[in-house]
């Protein structure tokens, strides 16, 4: 793009791309005569989906920062979180709905975290001296195995989780200037904000958080300071599992959770993490939100079935033009962080 522009416009290349993109969206939207309300609706729906992607992306970032592995089992954590919650909620019928759901959510998060810890000890730890390529393939294997186990445990049928506000399947909807919002959206946004706050506190104020950050900056250095890198890897997998589970649980009422819901959600979270540069939490959040909005707008003005394609098109565009994330300066690299 820079080739075709006068030098004084070079700083604005990103904005020009965005303008071109929005112009083409509006142009395509003209075919269906969309007004501002429709675009607003697409954006809000995209923002909801994007928040989930952001949560999942943060799990990818945690594991990558500490271990240098891209954890493809992240999607399985999302699915497990949702499925465990649904199961506990359906079986603990002796409790009234509200505490039952709360118990189910706690059980979902704790259960998934335990599975994440177990997974790290059983599959990642024995191969800790292998190359990153081997470790990535192992996480792919973990994903397939967990999804297969889920298929056996829950079969292929879709389940339901009540919405958090109404405690029923039907959720309350709120109309704001013609835009329809489900009450669950606010739960999703609130949860994500809370998670961000907790993460911020954890990384800034606690010893474990600081040790994790040290591992992210330089693993060898951290080890020389007496930090057990292998324990930090365990902590990272546990955190990633918890983050994935939270994402899966808050999104469950808006979809119908199935054993294979983890694949698409995990991959989208991965795209969001890449957009953020794979090492930064704010980048992951921004990446997730952008991904959600852009894919929803693009699918809205073209064809609903193409939604996932736009997400991965975005992945390839980001890899080609901003391989180190949308927030990174062009020349900046993360290679120093890699072993």
């Amino acid at each position, binding site marked *: 793009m820079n080739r075709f522009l006068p030098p004084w416009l070079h700083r604005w290349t990103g904005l020009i791309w965005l303008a071109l993109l929005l112009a083409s969206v509006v142009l395509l939207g003209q075919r269906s005569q969309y007004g501002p309300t429709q675009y607003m609706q697409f954006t809000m729906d995209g923002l909801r989906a994007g928040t989930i992607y952001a949560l999942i992306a943060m799990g990818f970032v945690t594991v990558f920062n500490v271990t240098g592995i891209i954890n493809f089992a992240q999607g399985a954590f999302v699915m497990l979180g949702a499925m465990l919650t649904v199961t506990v909620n359906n079986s603990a019928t002796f409790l009234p709905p509200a505490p039952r759901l709360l118990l189910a959510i706690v059980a979902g998060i704790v259960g998934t975290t335990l599975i994440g810890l177990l997974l790290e000890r059983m599959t990642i730890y024995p*191969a800790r001296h292998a190359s990153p390529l081997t470790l990535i393939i192992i996480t792919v294997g973990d994903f397939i195995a967990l*999804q297969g186990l889920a298929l056996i445990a829950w079969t292929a049928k879709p389940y339901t989780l009540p919405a958090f506000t109404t405690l029923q399947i039907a959720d309350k909807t709120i109309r704001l200037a013609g835009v329809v919002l489900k009450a669950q959206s606010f739960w999703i946004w609130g949860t994500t904000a809370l998670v961000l706050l907790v993460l911020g506190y954890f990384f800034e104020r606690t010893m474990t958080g600081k040790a994790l950050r040290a591992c992210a900056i330089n693993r060898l250095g951290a080890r020389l300071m007496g930090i057990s890198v292998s324990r930090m890897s365990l902590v990272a997998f546990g955190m990633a599992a918890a983050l994935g589970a939270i994402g899966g649980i808050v999104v469950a009422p808006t979809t119908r959770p199935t054993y294979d819901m983890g694949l698409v959600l995990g991959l989208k979270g991965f795209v969001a993490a890449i957009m953020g540069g794979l090492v930064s939490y704010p980048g992951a959040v921004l990446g997730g939100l952008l991904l959600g909005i852009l894919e929803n707008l693009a699918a809205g003005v073209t064809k609903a079935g193409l939604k996932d394609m736009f997400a991965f098109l975005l992945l*390839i565009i980001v890899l080609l033009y901003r391989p180190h994330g949308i927030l990174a300066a062009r020349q900046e690299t993360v290679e120093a962080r890699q072993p």
Partner: protein
Amino acid sequence: MIERMKASPNLRGGVLLSALVLVLGMVESTKPFGFDFADLSGGLVTMDTMIRIGILTIVLVGLNLLMGYAGQISLGQAAFYGIGAYISAILTARFHLLRLPPAIGGSWWWPWLVMVLAMAFAGGLAYLIGRPILTLRGHYLAMATLGLGIMIFILFRENLGFAGDHITGAFDGITAIPRLRVGSFELWPLSRYYFLVWFFAILCIAIAINIVNSRVGRAFRAIHGSEKAALAVGVDIAQLKLQALVVSAIFASLAGSLYAHFQAAVSPTPFGFASSLELVVMSAVGGMASIWGAPFGVTFILVLREMLRGQLRELLRGASGEHEIIFYGLLLVLIMIFMPQGIVVELMERLRRAGWASQGPRRTLKGEAR
């Protein structure tokens, strides 16, 4: 010839595999003394299975070049396979879309030409995607191939984004793909197609072996050993990885075309993310850095899948879906932890150490790769 065979395990392997393929094919097509694989193996191995093994071997040989030798994972290899299949399917079964006269579209050489076009297209696409990305380090290629794989799968499923189903047939796919012919000689009953597929498979193995044992192959192994050291002695890493990606895409596309003419129908499902993962599992089983491991990996997984499908249906009655995937996952994890070189390579190594297989010093970097 005998002397050369003694000197070169690869030549020996090639002759052995060709002989095996020939014998199996002859036995299966003539069925002497009522000898039938399908009966012997309880319906597990048939001509159909052996053709599938041949087709996937072609994909896997390319994938092994990329993963085992250039050290880059492809999580979207099924997409290149799908490109071959769909281009062959669309341009032969729906050639009227191009406004081609039947004299060309119906001629015997048109499907072969399409096959070459598809290979060029897949190779070109791999080049376009790989060139900018492979200059970066790390796992960027894995991410890009993953994205590409899913995008292409969705394009197949959604009729390339157009309304209707006149191009790719959307969910249902394309049917009535013509069989391959040479002149008026139809390569059809299964027994003939078997020989065609395995001819290509052995050709691809030969090409790959030659690549691995050439200057380029030594450079690949150098990259695999240490990228920095390879760079220091003047190996153009990005260029070589790009070549591996392009070759693997071309192989996959060839296999896809063969698949389309074999099934006479294509649908989006076999070209999705799950299939890409299955290819990675096959590669891990056979040994990534081993061309000879490819047919073993494919055979192992395909036979295992057939067995598991039968067994699990008995065990888990009433449950639907593809339960065998759990075993793929466990298998992949166990192999990567305990036998990262792959089952075949590891077993050969153990046999050699125990004195069963060919003696002599273990040859890795200096000698021929296996």
